[in-house]
């Protein structure tokens, strides 16, 4: 039995600048994974952090990473050809099988699009299995929108609604929070929703969708918690007897609502 704490060595094959603070790293070897799963990435000497797999296959995987702290900043300073450590994939992944034959709504904010990109790519490959598909994506500024290079391609398979908080030169799209766009998907009748983004965004977007008649058990959220081991032992991500790393990170809203701890807490999802 192999030791799940030991990372395997992987190599950075390509680095794509997505936005001023986010880069996509293409690394080899890849692994087989389910959309929504994540890996634990080690920058040797600096530490380890969880990142959603934003694309790829057995040959190579993509990780789209925003520089916020110790590990991520160092990673951003690394070059093609350098080595990192990878453990995983971990987590449950999005319930794609449930989407077949139904409408699919994808809601993302900021870096939250990363774990949803494999879903979008799956949709593009399996478009005929689904009815309506819409992507709602918001970011603080137009320049911070991830994966702009893919939008044209994606538009062929789905409706894309974009919004930003602060417009910049040349922005012709919507201005405002993601919640505003949620109101535009009234026509969805039997929809499954996959959502990932900052906690406040997820909170208000879920509320709006439920008000529109979406069922809370068809609303799936990807949660973020502090993770040290990624395999359900270290205890940091535990909420209410659940391990976000192992039982999640993706939960249906009605389940999440049951276990999110309420008073005295920064909520995460709903309070």
């Amino acid at each position, binding site marked *: 039995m192999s030791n799940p704490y030991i990372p395997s*060595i992987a190599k950075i094959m390509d680095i794509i600048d997505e936005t001023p603070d986010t880069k996509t790293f293409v690394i080899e070897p890849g692994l087989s994974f389910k959309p929504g799963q994540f890996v634990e990435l080690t920058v*040797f*000497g600096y530490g*380890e952090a969880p990142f959603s797999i934003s694309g790829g296959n057995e040959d190579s995987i993509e990780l789209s990473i925003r520089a916020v702290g110790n590990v991520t900043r160092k990673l951003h300073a690394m070059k093609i050809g350098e080595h990192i450590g990878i453990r995983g994939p971990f987590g449950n992944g999005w319930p794609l099988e449930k989407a077949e034959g139904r409408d699919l709504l994808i809601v993302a904010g900021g870096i939250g699009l990363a774990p949803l990109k494999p879903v979008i790519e799956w949709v593009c490959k399996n478009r005929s299995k689904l009815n309506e598909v819409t992507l709602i994506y918001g970011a603080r500024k137009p320049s911070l929108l991830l994966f702009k290079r893919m939008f044209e391609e994606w538009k062929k398979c789905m409706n894309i609604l974009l919004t930003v908080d602060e417009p910049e030169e040349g922005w012709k799209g919507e201005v405002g929070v993601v919640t505003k766009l949620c109101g535009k998907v009234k026509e969805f009748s039997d929809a499954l929703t996959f959502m990932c983004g900052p906690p406040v965004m997820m909170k208000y977007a879920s509320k709006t969708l439920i008000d529109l008649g979406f069922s809370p058990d068809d609303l799936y959220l990807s949660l973020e918690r502090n993770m040290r081991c990624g395999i359900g032992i270290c205890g940091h991500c535990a909420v209410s007897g659940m391990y976000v790393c192992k039982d999640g990170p993706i939960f249906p809203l009605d389940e999440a609502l049951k276990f999110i701890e309420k*008073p005295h807490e920064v909520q995460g999802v709903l309070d």
Partner: protein
Amino acid sequence: MDTFVKIAKSKLKDFLQHIMENYTLYAPVKKKISRFERIEDPSQICLLPNRTEISLKPIFLPPKESLFRWKKVEDGYIIEDCLNGKEKKVIFGAKGCDVASLKILDLYMMEVSDPYYASRRKDTIIIGITCEYPRESCFCTAFGGMIPDEYDLWLTDIGDYYFVDIGSERGKELVSMELFERASPEDEERKREKIERAEQEIRKMAKIELEEYQDMEDKFEDKIWEELGDICLSCGRCNLICPTCHCFDVRDITNLDGSAGERIRVWDSCHLFEFAKTSAENFRRDRRARVRYRIYDKFVFSVKRYKLYACVGCGRCIDSCHAGIDIRDVLRRLIR
């Protein structure tokens, strides 16, 4: 097992000596504080009338351990696993609460097998012993009593002899030596009395009985969390001393130029400010939430996940809390 045996107190040393020939023996010793240590000579052992100050946990999950070491090389990194070969262990002199705690620890650490824990834990033989008289803080009776469900051998002091209960095949093999004698029904009776008396004493002191899986979830917004949050020091001692708390932090340390290093894990505490902090939020910024989390993790969340209370009533957290938070008082209020 239907046959009962006993061993004369005078022969215990021989028995332990015999064990040490084939196993590494861990037993309670008393220095400044009492704890289990590897025994080189049976005379080191100090059989206490009740539990040791430090539990069995550090034997299987040490406070600090290296997971792996790495070295930078031309084309990547070389990793050296710090997983040690296993040793054949016998734990002698463990009390009921500690043995019970292993079962809980096993659940948490082995749901996804933790190789470091597993390698230390695997095939460990447990020889427990009944408490002579409990400590003021003991309340194991709230969770079933002084004798755990699983053990290999269980000793009870009945005068000149220890009565020996056999709990497993491995235990049976151990008592096949001529050091052991057949026990009489009177011996067994004496044993039962002894246990009952001690348990009664605890019940009298602790005054707390939990039903199986009692629902406390409605106390989530109780005033008690505010009271406790005000006095808790967030020092983390209750977590570290608890035989069933198992959370850990993972840290990377390197040499001066970062060309080699190691990854270690260190016990962590859910009372600490940064425990649930992510890059975006701190989910338990408030001390009240942290205090509640620990109690709920032991009495509500554990029931949800594993259908048991993650507490064995050893009372160590009671003795070690500077703020005088008594988990029995907390429970009494929650089940009211």
